[in-house]
């Protein structure tokens, strides 16, 4: 099967195993970095995910905070820091305890959608630990992580 090959990078970060179609969202959630050279491979075949995306960012090593942001939309992602073509470090994605002003609240009647204010979500721990859910700090509604839309800009 023919696959798009994303070239190896000398220095930077490779974000692999992003669920298919979510690469653009991953870039959005990282914010800034507009000066970096980014290559994206989308809908590659993956035995684990079916279809996966891969993002390579040259000359930029993701911070711990950026790594955790990725967890919100791509909890399956694996992150590799590359230095001089070698794997320097592998970082695990951890689901954050808070999402501070990164996503919209899906509730149209939430104050965050009526006034120009920041959004804030806290990790919600119900009885089921396997679910990744967040509760809006304002309207207190509970949403799965992948139900939260990333703010643009």
């Amino acid at each position, binding site marked *: 099967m023919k696959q798009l090959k994303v070239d190896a990078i000398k220095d930077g970060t490779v974000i692999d195993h992003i669920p298919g179609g979510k690469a653009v969202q991953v870039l959005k959630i990282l914010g800034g970095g507009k000066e970096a050279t980014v290559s994206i491979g989308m809908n590659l075949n993956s035995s684990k995910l079916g279809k996966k995306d891969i993002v390579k960012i040259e000359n930029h090593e993701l911070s711990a905070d950026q790594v955790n942001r990725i967890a919100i939309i791509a909890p399956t992602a694996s992150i590799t820091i590359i230095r001089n073509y070698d794997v320097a470090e592998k970082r695990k994605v951890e689901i954050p305890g808070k999402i501070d002003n990164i996503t919209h609240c899906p509730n149209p009647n939430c104050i965050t959608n009526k006034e*120009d204010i920041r959004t804030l979500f806290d990790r919600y721990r119900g009885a089921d630990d396997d679910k990744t859910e967040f509760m809006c700090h*304002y*309207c207190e509604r509970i949403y799965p992580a992948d139900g939260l839309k990333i703010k643009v800009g």
Partner: protein
Amino acid sequence: MSIGLKNKHIISMRDLDRSDLDLLVETAGAIEEGRIKPDMAGRIAALLFFEPSTRTSFSFDSAMKRMGGETLLMKGTGSTSVQKGESFSDTLRTIERYCDIIVMRHAVEGAARFASEVVGLPVVNAGDGANQHPTQALLDLYSIKKTHGTLEKLKIGLVGDLRFGRTVHSLAQALAPYNPEFYFISPGFLEMPEHIKAELTAGGVKYTELKEVDSVVPELDIMYVTRVQRERFADPEDYERLKGSYIITLDTIKDAKEGMRILHPLPRVDEIAEEVDASPHAYYFEQAENGVYMRQAILSILTGAVK
């Protein structure tokens, strides 16, 4: 004696732990019995009812005045500059200069939380859309305490619309620390939301879900009735067929325990037959009166007037 809540606001039942709840319930009782007489002379509560609610605003108004305090009452958005396009936070920052505590009802969810972050005064949430109405849950707790002398290990039936009724959600959360046994009685599509049930399960609270109230009546210490609204039903025939199951009559409660009490957040429409009002089980009008004592406790604790 020094009295203080860890948070200086009452926004959500989620913020209150068991010691906060006990403090509020005990203070309401002490105020009703005259053991504490909070002096609110010279203090002003702004009652900002962006969404009107006569009962709730009167209850706060009465609570403040019974302690010698005064109120500024705003009903709807018409009497403020909200309509002129002033930002909500500017409105709040201005009004906080006129008063000592803010009580707010708003149709928008999270409005009270936001207000508490904008102003320097204590804020009491008197209802924010479908989200929270903590002072109702607190007066319900106080009512239950009064009728049974304890909040521990009671068998509580919540009847009616358990899906959309924020009152029953808050009450279930409020009672959870007191080892209750719940019976959730509702039509299938109006049952208690999953996340509330999950929270209860995580807290080790037992509950049973039922479609009809009759079989469980002899078990109950408290029957908390809410209205099943016709508008919730897609098929009007379903409403006609089911509504009888959620109307409490003297016949419904004939096998109730002597001490069983019926609570209702009011206003009632037809979900409790008027014939029940004269029964010793009926408690909903006393419950409304208890709301004034609880709101006295809330206002006086948050402003530091209770000494």
